[in-house]
C-alpha cells in the first residue's frame, strides 16, 4: 500500500451496535475497500444499510468491532481536522455567527488572527455568504446553513472530506448548487471527497468511484465509474438498482 496520507483503506470492517434494549445489531459486515488520493467517492445504499456507521468510523467518531480503518497507513483512532465532516443536520454552533463558525477550526489551529480573518473572508466569498457574516445560524435558510458548514469544513484544507447526506434534504436546485460548490472546493483543496447518499443519481453524478452497501450490511459493489459508458448512465443505474433489490453481488459491479 502506498503511504500517501490521503489514501483510505477499510479492511474487513464489521460493526455491531448494541440497541437500547441490549440487542446487538449488525451495521456493517466484512466491508473492504480503498479510496485513492483525490478521488471523489460515493457510498450509496438504502437507509439502514450502515452508510452513516461507515462515515462515523471513517471520521473516528466510532471504533469498528472488527477490522481496521487507516488513513495514509495510520490507524484511525479519533476524530481530527484532517478528516472534516459535513453533517446532514448542519451541526453549526448556534451561539457563533457565520464568520465565527467558519473560523472555529482555524482558532483551534491557533493561526495568527489576521490570517484567520483573511481565510474566513476568502471562504465566505467562495460559498456566497458575503453580507451574512454576522448573522446567527438560526437566521439562515437550510441551504445557507449548509454553505456555512461546507466553508467551515474546508477552511482547514483537510485531506479528506466526509459528507453525510449533506444535500439530500435540500430542494433539488439548492442541492445541485451546493454539490457543485462542495466539489469545486474539494478540487481546489486537493481533498479526497467521500459522499454518503441514498440517491443513486447523486452518487453517479459525483463519484469517480461508488461503493454500494446492501441491506445485509455487506458491500455489494465497488464501481469504477470511468469504466462505464459515460453517455449512458441508465445502464449503470439499473445494474445498481437490481443489485440492491436482489441483495447479491453483480459480477459487473465488482472490480477485477
Amino acid at each position, binding site marked *: 500500500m502506498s503511504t500517501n496520507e490521503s489514501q483510505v483503506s477499510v479492511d474487513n470492517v464489521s460493526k455491531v451496535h448494541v440497541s437500547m434494549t441490549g440487542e446487538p445489531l449488525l451495521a456493517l459486515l466484512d466491508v473492504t475497500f480503498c479510496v485513492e488520493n483525490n478521488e471523489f467517492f460515493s457510498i450509496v445504499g438504502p437507509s439502514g444499510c450502515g452508510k452513516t456507521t461507515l462515515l462515523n468510523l471513517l*471520521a473516528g*467518531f466510532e471504533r469498528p468491532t472488527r477490522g481496521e480503518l487507516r488513513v495514509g497507513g495510520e490507524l484511525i483512532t479519533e476524530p481530527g481536522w484532517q478528516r472534516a465532516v459535513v453533517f446532514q443536520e448542519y451541526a453549526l454552533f448556534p*451561539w457563533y455567527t457565520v464568520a465565527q463558525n467558519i473560523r472555529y*477550526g482555524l482558532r483551534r489551529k491557533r493561526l495568527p488572527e489576521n490570517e484567520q480573518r483573511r481565510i474566513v473572508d476568502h471562504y465566505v466569498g467562495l460559498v*456566497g455568504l458575503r453580507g451574512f457574516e454576522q448573522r446567527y445560524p438560526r437566521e439562515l435558510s437550510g441551504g445557507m446553513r449548509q454553505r456555512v458548514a461546507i466553508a467551515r469544513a474546508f477552511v482547514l484544507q483537510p485531506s479528506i472530506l466526509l459528507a453525510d447526506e449533506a444535500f439530500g434534504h435540500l430542494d433539488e436546485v439548492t442541492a445541485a448548487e451546493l454539490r457543485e460548490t462542495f466539489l*469545486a472546493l474539494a478540487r481546489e483543496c486537493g481533498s479526497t471527497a467521500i459522499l454518503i447518499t441514498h440517491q443513486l443519481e447523486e452518487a453517479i*453524478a459525483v463519484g469517480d468511484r461508488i461503493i454500494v452497501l446492501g441491506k445485509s450490511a455487506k458491500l455489494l459493489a465497488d464501481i469504477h465509474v470511468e469504466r462505464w459508458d459515460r453517455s449512458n448512465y441508465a445502464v449503470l443505474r439499473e445494474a445498481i438498482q437490481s443489485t440492491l433489490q436482489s441483495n447479491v453481488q453483480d459480477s459487473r459491479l465488482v472490480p477485477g
Partner: protein
Amino acid sequence: MNPASSRIVAGSGDAAPAAAPRRDAQPFGHERAQRDDAVMQADMAALAASMVPPPPPPWRRALSRVSRLWLLVVFVVAWQLISMYGSAVNPQLEVMMPPPTAVVSAAADLAARGVLLTHILDSLKRVLLAVGAATLLGVPLGLAMGWSRRFRSVVDPVLEFIRPIPPLAWIPLSILWFGIGDLQIVYIIFLAAFFPIVLNSLAGARDVDTYLVRAGLSLGASQRELFATVVLPAALPQIFTGVRIGLGIGWMALVAGELVAAPSGLGYMINNARTLFRSDYILLGMVLIGALGLALDAGMRELTRLTMPWYHGK
C-alpha cells in the same frame, strides 16, 4: 496550500441535475452567479427596508405596553370595591381584607418610619447571597456531572438522597448550627436553590447535541476546548433556567424561613403583623414579595437576552 479562488472558474451557473453530465465535463463555480446574487440580495435588502413600516412613536409604544396591564387594573379595582363595599355585608372584611389603598398607606407609614426598606433589603440580600452561592457551587458541579458519566454515577446517589428533604425540614437543625440570623436563613435558601441549579446544569451539559460535539472534535478541538466552546454555551440556556427556578424557589424558602425565625425581613414583617392583627402590613408584605420576585425574574430574563442573543427561547 494557497486557496486560490481563480481555480473556481466561472461556469454557466446551471444547477447540474443529478444525472447530468459528469462533474469533470463541466467546470463548476459561481463567481458570476455569486456576483449576481450579491446584487440581487442588495436589491432585496433595499426593497425590504422600503416595505417595513416606520416604528411607532415612543408614546405609542409606552401606551401599548401599559394597555397590556388591563387585567391587573381590573384585579386591583375589584379588590378595592370588594373591600370597600363588602364590609357592609360582612364587617369582618375590614380586618380580613383591607383595600389596596390601605396597603399603600401602610407602605407609606412603614417607609416613613424607615423600616420598610430595611426589611426589603435584608430579604433581598439573603436571597441574592444564597442563590449566588448556589450558582457558584451548583453550576460547576452540574456541568461536571453532565460531562462525565463516571463522576455523575458517584455523586448522584448522595445528591438524590439529600434532594427530597424539604429545605424547611432543615430549619430546626440550621437554628442549632447557626443560631437565628442571616447565616441560618441563607443556608435554608441555599439548599432550596442549589438542587434546581445543579440538575438543570447537569441536563444542559449531558444533553448537548452529539452532532455539535462531533463537529467540534472533527474541527480539531481538544477536550478542554470542546468544553469551553461547545458544552458550556450549549448548556447556558439550561443553566439560566436553573438559576431562575432556583431564584423562585429560594424566594419562597426565604419567606418560609423568615416566618419561622428571623430578626428582620419581609417574612418577619408578615409574621410580626399577624401578632398585631395588622392585615394591611401582611398584605403589603405579600405584595412586595410578589413584586420583588417578578422584578428578579425579569432581571434574569433580561440577562439571558443580553448574554445569549443567539438563543431564541422565551
